């Protein structure tokens, strides 16, 4: 079994982490009970061991954060590890289909985003319509804006002008 120590500066939430300065420890043996997800590995102290924060354990085939380093007697250190599922299953995770509900690429969409900070104040904008048939503001005495409705007869109503004709006698 081998173990490779790394220095990882990426955010824990990054899937495709960049692992630097790999330091391999070969011939690692499991000599006591441990946990595949949270193993503790005791190794011989070496200069610089304290600077590593990440590792890969081949027998477990997993990547781990080194969450703590305990200094033991006899020139040994204990590396307390916690599995990094994102890096361990990076390839499989990337192949997954899912619904993206938030993303840094793009812009606000038609989906309501309750986390988008907006101010309480509002901008007020007024837009006037174009066109229209009103003329009342510029109408004059010659403008035909008046409608006069008169009783009687409709289109065929006959009239007579005042004077000149014999009136029909009304009985």
């Amino acid at each position, binding site marked *: 079994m081998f173990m490779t120590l790394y220095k990882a500066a990426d955010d824990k*939430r990054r899937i495709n982490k960049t692992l630097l300065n790999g330091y391999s420890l070969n011939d690692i043996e499991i000599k006591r009970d441990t946990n595949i997800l949270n193993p503790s590995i005791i190794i011989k102290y070496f200069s610089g061991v304290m600077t590593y924060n990440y590792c890969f354990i081949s027998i477990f085939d997993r990547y781990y954060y080194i969450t703590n380093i305990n200094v033991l007697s006899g020139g040994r250190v204990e590396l307390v590890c916690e599995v990094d599922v994102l890096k361990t*299953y990076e390839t499989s995770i990337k192949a997954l289909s*899912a619904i993206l*509900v938030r*993303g840094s690429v793009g812009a606000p969409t038609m989906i309501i985003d309750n986390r988008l900070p907006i101010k309480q104040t509002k*901008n007020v904008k007024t837009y006037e319509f174009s066109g229209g*048939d009103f003329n009342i503001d510029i109408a004059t005495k010659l403008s035909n804006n008046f409608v006069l409705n*008169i*009783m009687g007869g409709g289109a065929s109503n006959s009239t007579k002008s*005042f004077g000149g004709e014999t009136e029909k006698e009304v009985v």
Partner: protein
Amino acid sequence: MSEVNRSVYPLGQTGLEGLQICANKLNAYLDGEPWEQSIAISQSMNPNAPFNNVDFLTVDYNGLSVMHEHTQRDVQKIALTYISTGVSFGRNQYYNGSVDSVFIGATNELYYSYATLRKTARTQFVQNCQARYRPDLYDLITGIKYDSMLGVLCVGFNNGSEYCSLKYYYDHKDAELANKTPACIFMLGFYGNTEVSNVRRALAPIDLTELHFQYWMLRSLNPVTIDTTFADFYNAFPPSVGASLNPLGVPNNHQLAVPINAPSLIFPVVGCINGTVGKSQTWNTTPARNSSQGSIMYGGGYGDMYTVDLDFTDRIIRPILTQKAFDSALSIAATYGIPFTTEFPNDAHNLFNTDGLITYAPIANAGGYFDGRFETLTESGELSSELSPENKALWNGDENSPYNKRTYDPNIPIPTDNIDLTQPALTAIDAFNRTYIIDGNSVDDLGALLWSGDQSFLDSVLKSFELYGEKPINGIINLMLFPFDVREKTGATGNETIKIGRYDTQIAAYRLPTNASAIYDFGSFKWEREFDNFLDFEPFTTAELYVPFFGMFPLQNSHFIGKTIDIKVAVDFITGAATCIIYVSDKGIRHPVIYKNATLGIQIPITGEDVSGRVNTILNNAMGVVPDVADIAKSAISKDIGGLAKSAISAEIHAFGADAVPTMYQTAGASTPECSLYLPKKPYIILYTPEIIESDIYNNCIGYATFEDVTIGNCQGFCKFDNIDLSNIIATDTEKAQILSALAGGVYL
């Protein structure tokens, strides 16, 4: 042989120049210039060869000759077609796989070119056409006008080896061939015909998953334009009666290449189908296979396919089509406004018997394009008003147009695209009253006349009202002031004098006719999106619309944003009442959304009773509250936002919107339209838009809300996921839970 005059026009380097010449000729003809020439075609042998020339030939109608070269006829209708590339069908790449040619030609006559063709064939063809006259179908289709004959819509596919031709027919009858008016294409049915390279294959059912729209296109003849992007014309060829109409002007067995991968090509081909082929007797039963067989397509070009005994009603080769292919073809044809029937007789002898057929004709929308609706024609071919020539459907060439419906079902109702106000033929105006339009001077004159101190005048007026037994002043129903020039819109032209009862006041006025237009335009506005995201909608952005005389309208943004709002008002000139109609239109679809009533005409009091009555009405309404506006606003907006938010799956998108209900101002009291004269005269819209707190790292730390189906590996940056299926990950349950938690909480890629 009759003398042929020929004009040759050298065309230049490209076929498009030649097309332009032809198009100019055609347009001139459509503009009424006499057409005395037929246009033959030219051809080059490869798509990159220059277009050499076009022969313009004059023809003699009676110059029917049996010769080895083609016989020309008077061209009475022409169209254009253009093939950019093509593969000759049937033959084995006769033209080395490509032909670049332009051909123009159409006649109302048969055009055939083989010595073996009998003269009588033509006569019989014409007689057959005459027997199926359907003048009621004239002008159903814009620009697709033929004097007779069949047509074929050719559809190409990109499978590289097959195509399907859709033949449409129309029937036509005219006692005098020379006098017949332009008929139109009426699709009695269609059939597909594959041109395949071997007989066995041709006999198999045509199983087409899709008719590729982009391979054919139909454009109106009038006017003919050349789209330099891709040439799309249609060609009305004369019927080639089995023999090789050779549009190339070259006799013998040249084939007209059919573009398989060419863009936008349609051939309405005038041709006929014949049961007897001079060379092969198997034509009847075998789909068109090669030049020795088959139906006429593409203007002929079956070099050695010819007809000895022309029988227009003979059997038609009808290969088997899948239902999907059938539906696709019919849908495409329908987008061109071509009437059609879905009942296609198996017996070709009944092909042109249209009695009893249920036929459908597409209906055009206001823009003139097929809008997906169909009208069923009666057996007698009577047309509805929608199928008048003014409603002929066009095709706008845009595959993505909402008017190019790809599917159809005459039994499924299709939404109406346009609901507009109509002009009634009869109104209350001028029915038992007289309505005058007058100006301010006439008002003054009328007032002076009515209140005149001239006793003799008053006596005359009283006498003239004896018939009514009424006070003269009561002859006046009302006098109203409108905020627009009434005469301008109504078009009232009748210059008269005002007559009250039987008394002519001699005061000038315009008489308002009963069918006067009472619809006024209050303007329009295109509401553009400011944010182009959810911030454009309630409750983040709210909007109110002010309409003069009608007040404020709260708007539901989703109904109006991104669209054009226009306001029409229908006015009652007798009472002064009006109805405001707020329209929304987008991409040619326009419909009314809001109706509101108000009083637009300002009543000018004539008597003391008038004034007191109005004042009482106003005072009585003063304490009233108008609840409808506010209530509508609240219920609509709140409901929509809540519904929208809660339907989302992710907890990231919660019912934020439902918490924020816009404040609506309730209106109270009643006012007179006179007050509105002092208010703004143009409608306006008020938008209350939010201010965003800008953050450079928002997207990297929080991310924009979205909802997309993705593959995680294809994403970048900060991402949150939901609905993740971990089936393919072999890990412990604890690890899977950690993966889900990490992805839901956000990861970086």
